[in-house]
């Protein structure tokens, strides 16, 4: 067997730690860049800025239709199937393990706090985050963004702000829609198969929803939308001049959005247990 001499082992270990160090610094700098990018976008609202700037408002409405309204059908469809496939399974498993007493409580926690926001977040990443990166990246390569900048149009104001805001609003509404449809179909399907009253379960579930839960749900979804929207715009505008950079940035945006989404979710789990 061939063994590396101690000196070589030492060098390889050091190289590994150096790599970890470099990656950690790069990740830290990325978070700082992203935060700065987001803050710069929101600080566009200075006293001179008309709140409902017509050009920006028009982009905002377009984006709201693309990101939110157009996704309602697919989200509802997905929620229906997830409700039937997963919620009914959960009902069965939990009913057999814990009994009916804790069932509604666990369901509300799992579906309203976790599955609804997370699955909606993943759909938003796959559907809208990638679309924003491609849209902004291609516009930048073709020089469409620079020529508007030369006419005094602020890039953060016109391109970034409406996209982030529409992402936040869409995430909140779609997550709400997803959770409601999923619970409804899950309960109805469960009531058909198991000995469970759907009406009673849904009533019990609704009684568990209070202001605190609702606030947490809204805050979580707002942060999800804000994060995914910011990452999408950041990577879209990071494209410089080559078409290959569009796919490269799209990949980065999708992977990093998923990582940030799970980190944020983890944060909420820790602080709401």
């Amino acid at each position, binding site marked *: 067997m061939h063994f590396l001499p101690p000196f070589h082992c030492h060098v390889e270990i050091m190289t590994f730690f150096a790599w970890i160090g470099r990656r950690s610094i790069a990740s830290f700098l990325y978070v700082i860049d992203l935060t700065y990018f987001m803050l710069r976008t929101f600080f566009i609202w200075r006293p001179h800025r008309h709140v409902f700037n017509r050009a920006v408002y028009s982009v905002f409405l377009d984006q709201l239709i693309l990101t939110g309204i157009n996704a309602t059908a697919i989200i509802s469809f997905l929620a229906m199937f997830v409700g039937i496939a997963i919620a009914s399974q959960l009902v069965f498993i939990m009913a057999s393990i814990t009994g009916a007493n804790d069932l509604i409580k666990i369901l509300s926690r799992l579906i309203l706090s976790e599955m609804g926001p997370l699955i909606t977040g993943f759909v938003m990443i796959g559907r809208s985050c990638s679309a924003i990166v491609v849209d902004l990246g291609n516009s930048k390569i073709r020089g469409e963004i620079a020529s508007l900048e030369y006419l*005094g149009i602020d890039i953060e104001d016109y391109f970034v702000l409406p996209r982030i805001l529409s992402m936040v609003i869409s995430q909140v509404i779609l997550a709400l829609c997803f959770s409601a449809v999923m619970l409804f179909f899950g309960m109805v399907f469960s009531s058909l198969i198991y000995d469970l009253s759907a009406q009673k379960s849904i009533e019990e579930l609704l009684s568990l929803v209070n202001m605190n839960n609702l606030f947490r749900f809204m805050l979580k979804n707002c942060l999800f939308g804000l994060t995914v929207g910011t990452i999408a715009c950041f990577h879209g505008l990071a494209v410089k001049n080559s078409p290959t950079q569009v796919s490269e940035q799209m990949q980065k945006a999708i992977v990093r959005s998923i990582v940030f989404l799970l980190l944020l979710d983890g944060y909420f789990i820790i602080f709401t247990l």
Partner: protein
Amino acid sequence: MNNMNPISISADKAIPYTRESDLNFPPLNCQLQSSTLTCLVGPHRSQLRAYLHMLAGITKPERGEVEVFGQKISELEALAWQKVRTQVGYLSGTSPLLSVEHGLMNVMLPALYHNHLSFRETADKARAILKQLKCDFEPTRYPALLNSFQRLQLALARALILDPEILFLDVPFNDLGAKEREKMACLLAEYKETHAVCMIGGLQYVRFLEQHATQIIFISEFKVIKFNSWQSFKQADDPEIHQLLRIL
């Protein structure tokens, strides 16, 4: 050149800021006045574009000073810079319109962003400009469905909707056929009667310079030479100019 015309832009020993160029940039002294057409010519397009961006106030000079309507570009803050941009029109023959918006919306965009006019008023203004520019097509079509001349007409309308005092043209005859060049030259000549125009890419349509240029600035790596007409530029006794004219 008529020295009584108000000066819109002046450069004093100005050298553009360039990050990724190996070229040498000599200092430029010039003035751009209304009712004049200034054309920057030279062997390097990237160099000319850097000077054009500097004169248009898009980039700050690395050395020297550029004044746009009496304001020093190097001292402008973000808000003042944005205001200057509304007074300086910029048309690029290579940078297209925003592909996700239709033609009319592209034209309306700067006015919707900077002015507080209603949507209807802005649309009326945009349609009036398009009529002036003899646009005979439906402006609500998307840029991808229009030909290069129609797209350029829309881009010109977009540059003019804020009523700029001066218009910068970055290769305006790029991608145009002979007849379309002539049409575009007529539109630009009409605008030049009352406003200042500064351009690069004029050598793509020399006839336009012959008829309308009041200042030709030759810029190469080591010299800047000014001429007051195309004729004097053509007769210049400079080997670099001869070489440039030979390859035209």
